[in-house]
């Protein structure tokens, strides 16, 4: 089982009394605003949860594992997530279960 957008919307309307349309809009906007910030090249810091950061990777040599053909992996910007202390502690305890 995985937590999906539909589950988040469901729980939001149950907990805060939002109707389905409001809950859906707020959840979609939450993820969209994070995407837009990262698109602008701006990292996102959500205290207690974690930070979404950007890394610029230079071009590097790659290889097609099937054909063994050498093909360069182009330069790219990637998103990385660094979990916050609170989230790390919460998740760590899962090791006991």
């Amino acid at each position: 089982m995985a937590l999906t957008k539909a589950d988040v919307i469901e729980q939001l309307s149950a907990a805060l009394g939002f109707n389905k349309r409001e809950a859906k809009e707020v959840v979609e906007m939450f993820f969209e605003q994070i995407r837009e910030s990262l698109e602008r090249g701006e990292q996102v810091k959500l205290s207690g949860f974690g930070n979404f950061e950007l890394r610029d990777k230079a071009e590097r040599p790659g290889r097609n594992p099937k054909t063994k053909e050498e093909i360069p992996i182009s330069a790219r910007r990637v998103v990385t997530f660094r979990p916050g202390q609170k989230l790390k502690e919460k998740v760590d305890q899962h090791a006991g279960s």
Partner: protein
Amino acid sequence: MTKSDLIDAMADKQSLLSYRDVELAVKLILDQMSNSLSTGERIEIRGFGSFTLHHRAPRIGRNPKSGESVSLGEKYVPHFKPGKELRDRVNTAAGN
């Protein structure tokens, strides 16, 4: 962008909900995500990405100051894999 910048941006962009409602919603969304991961349940948000747990085997660590060995138990750490839409948008915006 911080959590309060995110709340401001969301409150500005829509008219259905009050600032207070948006604030509560953001806190609740993050709580749900943390709770889900802390029970070992993965998170899958299409177009954004997925969060899973990665296992870390027990190891012998060392106190860098005293040089003393300390045994560290196994643990789980959160891992995020960006979804295709997020990957493509960020990379395209960077001019690659």
